[in-house]
């Protein structure tokens, strides 16, 4: 490998972080304890956030940490710690179903790879790859000017699910 590839430290960091993400992802699949899996998944989320930062998408990166690594992982930990479950997952065994899913996964991977290879990517200098849309002001303007209706729809959806969750919780309590 050419050392000049590391002249840009960004590249070095990119490879390091990618390695971390991949290792975390593999570990997540291999761990037998659920809580370890969640932790490894948190590692993947944080790694992705660093990738966003490397791409200059500060806001997205931070939001990734906040929502995925912060809120969602914690929620999963809560669920695991508060519920009764086997601490250790049973050993995986091969079955027909699993074989099919393995084939499906391989096919999906191949398709994704093909699509990625066939796309023409805009190559920037690592700073302005998404034309400055990383900053919160730009995102806010875009959201409220160009995508107002989808944004509001999404909000509505979230609200509905929130109310639904409250309703379900309340019904249980009355039992």
């Amino acid at each position, binding site marked *: 490998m050419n050392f000049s590839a590391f002249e840009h430290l960004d590249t070095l960091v990119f490879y390091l972080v990618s390695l971390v993400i991949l290792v975390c992802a593999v570990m997540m699949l291999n761990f037998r304890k659920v809580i370890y899996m969640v932790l490894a998944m948190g590692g993947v989320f944080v790694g992705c956030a660093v990738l966003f930062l490397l791409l200059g998408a500060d806001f997205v990166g931070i939001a990734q940490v906040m929502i995925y690594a912060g809120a969602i992982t914690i929620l999963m930990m809560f669920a695991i*710690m*508060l*519920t*009764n*479950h086997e601490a250790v997952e049973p050993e995986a065994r091969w079955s027909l179903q699993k074989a099919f899913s393995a084939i499906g996964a391989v096919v999906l991977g191949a398709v994704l790879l093909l699509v990625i290879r066939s796309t023409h990517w805009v190559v920037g200098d690592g700073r302005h790859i998404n034309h400055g849309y990383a900053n919160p002001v730009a995102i806010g303007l875009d959201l409220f000017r160009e995508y107002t209706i989808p944004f509001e729809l999404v909000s509505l959806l979230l609200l509905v699910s929130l109310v639904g969750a409250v309703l379900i919780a309340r019904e*249980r309590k009355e*039992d």
Partner: protein
Amino acid sequence: MALIPNGTDREPMRSEKGSAAAQNSAPAAQGHAPMPYGGPAVDDIRMEEMLLNVGPQHPSTHGVLRLLVRARGETIVEADPVIGYLHRGTEKLAENLQYTQIIPYTDRLDYLASMINNYALCHTVETAIDLEVPERAEHLRVLVMEMQRIASHLLFIGAYLLDLGAMSPFLYAFQERERIVQLFNRICGARLTYNYMRIGGVKYDAPEGWLDDVRDFVPWMKGKLEMYDRLITGNEIFLNRVRGIGVFDTKTALAYGISGVNLRSTGMRWDLRRNRPYSIYDRFEFDIPVGQHGDCFDRYYLHLLEMEQSLRIIEQVLAQMPDGPVLGKVPKIIRVPAGEYYCGVEGARGELGFYIVADGKDKPYRLKIRKPSFVNLQLLPELLRGQSLSNLIAILGAVDIVLGEVDA
């Protein structure tokens, strides 16, 4: 304790004592047997019980009390106090001790109110042998007993607030208490286990200037009480934590034999200094403050009010302190005529009584101590049942027990 981990079948603090309670409750903590159709039902997961072991080494059990708490979610299903970690067999020891020799053992019962313990024993023996106590001795006794009551109540307030998370009142209370302890130290040479009283009087007369110092102490302490009132009673967080918590009524209290502040907090005007007058309490004017709701706040506030009344008594004692001997004409070896005697006095925590079965010798045939903390503690499981776990400490603290007395 908002979030109680349902379904943790882990038991990190095992029962050291291997008590039946632990064994009885243990299966409940193991969780339910698997359902026939596979996983447990949803409701089963939600309602699984948890066994929580509070104590005997826990900062808020005031000694070596252990509470085995079975909780369902946040609600306490059952709390079982396990006692006896400090059991020294005082009653058995006393059977082999002469009456005077028992006095230092009483110091170690309710070690926050040793003077009153001393008195309760001496008073019972004096009643039994019909012994006259000199006036000055009786005045000194009342004086130190009321000071002791203040010291004990101060410690209650400090420790209670510490239980509720406020750190400063504890240290403040210790400063005030220190002054009383210093005064005791000067009159009897000890700071905690005084062994000051004797059958027929007290061991030492007040040293020179001591009474004057007590006289100075009274107004100073009054100021401090006002400070406590301002500092604690109005605190919103404190009120929210103690109001309406741990409520019981007079009927329950009487059924359980509750005495002292715990009984008075329910509105019952019951103070042995008035209801079964002993010593010279009938000569003094003082009120018996009572609560209204029987909750933790009432119990806290009554302690404050009682200190005020104790100060009133001290003032009157000082005003009429007579001269004279401090120890009556007591035989060398005290022999109590055969018979049974019971005398109860108003201790710092309730009715402290000594029941003596005498066989005419110099040692009691049987000595039973009616321990207020022991009796009051019985109500705790009732108070805790159905309560949320977060109130556990607030309720336990307000019952005000001393483990030295509970376990005797």
